[in-house]
């Protein structure tokens, strides 16, 4: 999860969420950084509206409605 926190920090400070920045934050936290995970994070967030993603509850019970319907 530390990779996600790194992205959240950069999002708050308004810095770009790119591989260099994410890596720098992780290293400062003592993480033995895996570049592939950094890459994956940056790629996953590319087309995501972070504010919206943060506010949308990641609740699994989406299926609940379908079953009810």
């Amino acid at each position, binding site marked *: *999860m530390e*990779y*996600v*926190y790194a*992205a*959240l920090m950069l999002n708050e400070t308004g810095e770009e969420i790119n591989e260099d920045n994410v890596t720098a934050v992780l290293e400062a936290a003592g993480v033995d950084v895996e570049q592939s995970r950094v890459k*994956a*994070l940056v790629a*996953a*967030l590319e087309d*995501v509206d*972070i504010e*919206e*993603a*943060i*506010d*949308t*509850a*990641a609740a*699994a*019970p*989406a*299926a*609940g*409605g*379908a*079953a*009810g*319907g």
Partner: protein
Amino acid sequence: MSESERIRRTETIPQWKQEEVDELVDFIESYASVGIVGVAGIPSRQLQNMRRDLHGSAEVRMSRNTLTRRALEDVGDGLGGLTEFVSGQVALIGTNDNPFGLYQQLEASKTPAPINAGEVAPNDIVIPEGDTGIDPGPFVGELQQVGAEARIMDGSIKVTADSTVLETGEEVSDELANVLGELGIEPKEVGLDLRSVYSEGILFEPDELAIDVDEYRADVQSAAAAARNLSVNAAYPTARTAGTLLAKAVGEAKSVGLFAAIEDPELVPDLVAKADGQVRALAAQIDDDEALPEELRG
């Protein structure tokens, strides 16, 4: 301070005072954070215990206020700002620990104590609702006189509602001191009272030092929720969220399958249930028993 200044000072104040000031300066300079604590009303034995409890995290140094002020001014570097808090019965406190942590530690070590007539209420004094356990007698009148809602019920004197009998800053009367003593109410908190701390360039006052741990806990929760949401909604799996992500994907597939009535073995039981629910819902809209199967006739 230059050597010539030191000599000049030595000439203006007695030698023992200068030595005391020098010791205070050494004390101040040996800690990363220095503060002023109020020590009024602390019995000397309790003070001894407090100093012992602080051993290893903070040190208390008492002196005359004039010498304390002088030492603070001599060190300078913003520490002079502490002099305005040096009044009454105070002492210096020094720590290399976190000043917020020190404040919490000192607050936690405070103990309740009775308040005497003539003292000023440090906070609103409240006589709580409840049975005083005192037999009917003149005490009910004394309670009413100091402003408590009291009457005799079931053979004893009861306070019928929480009653604020003195507000912060007001002086305690003889009558009130007696009543509080009779009830065993100890409205004061006695202990080292941190008035201000100077730490690495910043002067903190108590309202800045009082941290709301619950608020931080809530922040941790929202931060954790934010990370979870982002991880799941951006489909970036982590050890903490991989399970949720899988469940979400399964949920989505189920939703689509049920919505589109896809004849998938895993979905068919739910589809059957869905159809049953629909037919029952429709039947419920039909008023005419004649049109309904026997099991649904009202």
